């Protein structure tokens, strides 16, 4: 069983990302959406934590939410993959279930 975890809150404000990373197992995936996309940025105080987690877990970022907040793929930690809404749907099919960290 592998899980797609979605995180939709800013890591600077809420601990959703931290909790998610504490429980995300090898082979699962994290999709950053809405204010969760701030965790994907380079040069923040969460970059190291995310980069470490990426050794075990695949990271995705919802591009429309990234663009809305004024960022582009160039500002994202290397290795995080961009998805659009169709890609979001594909991920929910690829993984056995979705855990939304609200």
């Amino acid at each position, binding site marked *: 069983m592998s899980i797609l975890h979605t995180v*939709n809150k800013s890591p*600077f404000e809420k601990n959703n990302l931290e909790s998610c990373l504490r429980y995300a197992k090898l082979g699962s995936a994290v999709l950053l959406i809405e204010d969760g996309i701030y965790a994907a940025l380079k040069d*923040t105080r969460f970059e190291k934590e995310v980069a470490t987690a990426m050794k075990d877990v695949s990271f995705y970022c919802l591009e429309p939410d990234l*663009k*809305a907040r004024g960022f582009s793929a160039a*500002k994202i930690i290397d290795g995080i993959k961009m998805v659009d809404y169709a890609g979001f749907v594909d991920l929910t099919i690829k993984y056995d279930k979705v855990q939304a960290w609200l």
Partner: protein
Amino acid sequence: MIKKCLYLNRRAPYGTSYALEAIDTVLIGSAFDQDISLLFIDDGVFQLKRDQDTTDVEMKNFSPAYSAFEMYDVEKLYVSKEAMAARGLKKRDLIVDVEVLSDSAISDLMDEHDVIFSF
């Protein structure tokens, strides 16, 4: 009597409606001849990020409104240096000209104001 009003912004845009509500309140407040300052700390600094493009999320991009504040005689915008650094933001990443303050200078700023509106 003219009061010194500080609008304190600490939320990211779009995920919640705080940022948009703050803009509306500032614009209305500017009609009352008060001495207005805006302060952006914590995730509030993300409100001022350049290049916001909300086409695909089908929401209104309200960030151009910050550039209109000057016309409303709202000219004092401050951001937290620490908040910017924690988020990898530089002054040039922002859509408007701001004054960057240290957290201790921000404490003083809050002291100097008669009223603080928190968003």
